[in-house]
């Protein structure tokens, strides 16, 4: 647990409470603009789905990671539960994917409640390490329990029923589903900015002991944040499963995926409304561009980008931009 100097020589820990209403208008304008994306860039629709979907999942991660300050490196568990519950119910029981996604969400919430209840007494890096252990064990079990999950060979989705007359495998439909999910995640983040519950979470992030002294029950509030975060991530996972059409435990439950969600939020600015969205746009869009211009070197440049952001914009890009504008 790194102790930052109390006089605040590093502004990262300064509370960002009551950041203003203009961000709500901003969010609505942005979502409205995004609805034109499929018409404007029809040939980049797959890229668009990926960015919006990852933005939604990174925002969901941010409820726990950014707003509550509990660094989880195991969120791929919920992506995997969402994708696998949906897919297995379709394959084995013929349950429609949207109901499957709901069941997956319920399962994720139950898992998060147990996981959080047990590990939230750990603080700082210890919680992060425990989350890695939980996620890796889940991946190993999913990989080996072939009778349930289909094992390492992975599973592919059959033809899905129409959802309100819409083909779920159409990229345009997936784009708007992801956009709705992003809207939901942004609404939660906006609410956290100004609600009593949100203030509690931010107080816990700034100083857990002080929050406890003020009568906040940190474990209870952290578990609630975890449940919300898990539910949203799980919905994203179900959609991600449909988007991929074929997946395996190695990808769905991977540490890389968990780390990616955390990176997106941090690079854009954890605990801010637009941070995860900016991060997802930069990392997903950026790695796509890099794949074109630096074939085979995209991950290298990705690593360099992370290092540069940490050195020069340690609170994420959106915070750096805001500070530059204010100065």
């Amino acid at each position, binding site marked *: 647990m*790194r102790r930052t100097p109390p006089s605040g020589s590093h502004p990262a820990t300064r509370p960002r409470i009551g950041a203003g209403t203009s961000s709500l208008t901003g969010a609505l304008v942005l979502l409205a603009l995004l609805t034109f994306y499929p018409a404007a860039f029809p040939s980049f629709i797959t890229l668009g789905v990926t960015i919006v979907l990852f933005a939604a999942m990174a925002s969901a991660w941010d409820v726990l990671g950014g707003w509550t300050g509990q660094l989880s490196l195991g969120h791929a568990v919920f992506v995997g539960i969402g994708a696998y519950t949906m897919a297995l119910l379709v394959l084995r029981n013929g349950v429609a994917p949207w109901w499957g996604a709901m069941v997956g969400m319920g399962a994720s919430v139950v898992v998060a409640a147990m996981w959080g209840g047990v*590990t939230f007494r750990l603080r700082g890096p210890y919680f992060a390490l425990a989350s890695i252990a939980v996620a*890796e064990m889940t991946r190993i079990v999913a*990989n080996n329990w072939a009778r349930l999950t289909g094992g390492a060979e992975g599973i592919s989705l059959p033809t899905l029923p129409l959802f309100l007359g819409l083909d779920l495998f159409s990229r345009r439909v997936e784009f708007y589903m992801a956009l709705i999910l992003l809207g939901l995640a942004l609404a939660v983040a906006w609410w956290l900015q100004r609600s009593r519950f949100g203030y509690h979470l931010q107080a816990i992030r700034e100083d857990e002991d002080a929050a406890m002294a003020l009568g906040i029950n940190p474990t209870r509030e952290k578990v609630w944040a975890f449940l919300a975060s898990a539910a949203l991530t799980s919905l994203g996972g179900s959609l991600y499963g449909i988007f991929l059409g074929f997946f395996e435990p190695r990808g769905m439950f991977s540490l890389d995926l968990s780390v990616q969600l955390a990176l997106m939020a941090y690079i854009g600015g954890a605990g801010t409304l637009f941070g995860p969205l900016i991060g997802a746009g930069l990392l997903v869009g950026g790695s796509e561009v890099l794949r074109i211009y630096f074939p085979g070197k995209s991950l290298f440049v990705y690593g360099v980008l992370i290092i540069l952001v*940490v050195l020069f914009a340690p609170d994420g890009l959106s915070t750096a931009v805001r500070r530059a504008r204010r100065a």
Partner: protein
Amino acid sequence: MVQFVQIVVNGVFTGGVYAIIGIGLSLIFGVMRIVNFAHGVFLVVGMFTTLFFFERLHVDPFLVIPLVVLVGGLLGIVLERFLLEPIVRAPEHASILMTVGIGLVLSNLLLFAFGDAPQIINTRYSTSTWHLGPITFSTALTIAFVLTVVVIGGLALILERTDLGRSIRAAAQNADAAELQGINTRRVRSLVFGIGFALAALAGALLLPQLFAHPSIGPTYTLKAFVVTVLGGMGNVAGAIGGGLLLGVTESLGAAYVSSSYRDAFGLAAFLLVLLLRPAGLFGRSRT
């Protein structure tokens, strides 16, 4: 019974190398409060450095170990100076991101330099064995284990008996107080990161004769290093030795008697249990 002893022996030998990885991670955490996500990649750097010297200079992999350790140490010091020192006062997630970034850059540099094909080196003793009664020992693993014991012993001497060791321990206990006593904690941090990198590189060199080297295997060893340090207690160097041996034996017993496909899960389960029940590690005094 013979089979059981054989399995435990194999576990102990592998565990020795795990201990070396864990000690480096534990030192870094103890002094710098950084959870180093690039630690496994440092090990892979060690593997490929050894491979490079072996293929270009045709020297026995165990003879180039001093060179590998030197390269690792220098790389560690340089990385610390330029990338970690600037963020020493930043919140802890900054150092996690930074080490993730360093790991990505290093492993991809290795990918450019050595290609995507798994590589292996062949030495006279790669497959040779020796026997003690009914127990069989792999020659390569035996050499690795002997070197491990020597290195850990040397490191313990440095930490306990020299001024450098005392400054490292002081910085780990209380950086500000150490600074007030005239210890240059900035220099200590650089050195500790260098030592950590060097130890990981050494472990890579020791494991090379029995493993395929590939630029992407880093994260597997980062996880193993986490398990070892948490078992032994984060920041507890002596505990890391016990943690390493425990992980090695648990893995090989679990793989032999329960299921080999769950091999990695046994270590993780132990890791999670220790984290929850004894956060200071199995061998640590619990602090309140």
